[in-house]
């Protein structure tokens, strides 16, 4: 807001005071939101670190188990048995609100199955296959948890950045400009007051 565009009137001053008050309360609220989001972010970051390391571990175990199953049963057998698994895990996508930020909430079903629900017969297979399947079920579960947390982190980061920009804009641009305009009007009004007083004195004299 350029100073020259400001009309030095009392109503404009009242309007500006209202705007400044609103901007200050908005600034305070946004600062609180930013701090809250940062706290939430660090909490999620710790979780994400744990989930990531669990995911890495689960991947290591799953790779070892499938490698072992391939050694015992053969790649051809594993390929054949893999044909039996047609059902893909079901994922239910919902959303939850963290301080105004909408983040996904992923619920999975049919990831972990019992021995009888996996689609392959027990008599013609061996336990190393069960162990590989279990390891991959754990791995898929970890992927889903990691996807939820990491997406939430990305969304929070975006929102923290946006809120930070708003706070800075209010703190360093909007509020100072409003204050300056307010000061300008006050000075101008005082000046006009003095001019009036002087004019009246001259008329009297």
């Amino acid at each position, binding site marked *: 807001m350029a100073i020259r565009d400001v009309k030095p009137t009392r109503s404009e001053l009242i309007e500006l005071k209202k705007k400044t008050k609103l901007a200050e309360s908005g600034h305070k609220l946004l600062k609180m939101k930013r701090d809250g989001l940062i706290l939430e972010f660090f909490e999620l970051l710790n979780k994400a670190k744990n989930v990531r390391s669990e995911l890495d571990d689960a991947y290591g175990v799953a790779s070892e188990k499938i490698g072992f199953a391939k*050694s015992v049963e053969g*790649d051809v057998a594993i390929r054949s048995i893999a044909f039996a698994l047609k059902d893909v895990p079901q994922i239910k996508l919902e959303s939850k609100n963290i301080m105004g930020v909408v983040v996904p909430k992923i619920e999975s079903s049919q990831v972990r199955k019992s021995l009888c629900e996996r689609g392959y017969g027990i008599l013609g297979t*061996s*336990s190393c296959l069960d162990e590989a399947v279990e390891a991959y079920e754990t791995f898929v579960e970890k992927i889903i948890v990691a996807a939820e947390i990491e997406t939430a982190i990305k969304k929070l980061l975006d929102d923290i950045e946006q809120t930070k920009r708003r706070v800075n804009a209010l703190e360093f641009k909007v509020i100072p400009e409003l204050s300056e305009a307010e000061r300008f009007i006050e000075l101008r009004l005082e000046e006009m007051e003095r001019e009036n007083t002087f004019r009246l004195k001259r008329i009297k004299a």
Partner: protein
Amino acid sequence: MMSWKRKQGSKSYAYLCARVRAMKSKLLQKESYPRLMNMELAEIARFIEDSEYKDEVDELARRYDGANLIEHALNQNLALTYRKLLNISAGESHHLLSEYLKRWDIWNIKTILRGKRYGASDSEILEAVVSAGRFGYHDLIELVRKDVPEIIEKLKRDYPLDGYSEDRMDYFENALDRFYYESLVELEAVRKPKTKSNRLFSEMVKTEIDVRNLKTLFRSAKAGLEREQIVDMLIPGGLKLNMVALIKLAGLPFDEFTASIKDYPYWDSISGTVTDENGSLTGVEIGLDKYCLEHASRSSHYYPLSIVPIMDYVVSKKNEVDNIRMIVRGREAGLSDDLIRSKLVL
């Protein structure tokens, strides 16, 4: 007439056993495995190429490489070896062998049905079949080209596939495996063995059934399945574990189950590998496989002109293929030498 038949059978065994003895002498010796353990994949492929697997490695080298080449060569050689045995056998030996090797037909049927359910292409399914049973590769190609109702129509007379539904795949897979073992038990040579050699063959089959049932019980106990679910998967006709004993063992908690099988002769071969219900069962399964192999190998010397040495060869050949594959795939997966060595059945 009877004496002619016996003579004919004995002649047939003399020829077949001589061929089998020659074939068995070409199997890898125990001393070869430590050497294989120290080789890289390319060296193993070269080693295999210098042995009985040369033709298969040469033929498949255009389509596969690395561990895949070795595994496909091993499978193809196994299939051709078993097919050769079926071709050179006659009479009783042929009948018993073909019934025993029907497990590969069951394997192939399961693979084809799984592949069809999954929507795999014909070539993908054909990559996963092993024509080591009565179905030759061309029979399997013909089968794979059909759709599921046609396959069921063709097979349902000989296999329990009536009412087949893709939603109950596991049930039909178990039914096919049960059917295989029940058919074996129904063979006269197994049910009422008249000769001492057939008695040994019968023992071998029944021991395998016991081992299969024990593996099922171990896995079920670990997974915490209910007795009703387990009973349907148990195979009658075992040597030491009859159905009454099996039903008693089914559904027991893992600790009680392991305590209950300590009186059976199989325990000695697995006692060192049984841990708690969270532990791996692969050691147990390998221990039980070793028991079967040792049983077949021990019996093979008693009656040199009978089905027993032939079955010993069948089991030993499969074991050789499994051992080489274990080393090759173990190397590829980066498994430790100790782990690979512990899983070899020597």
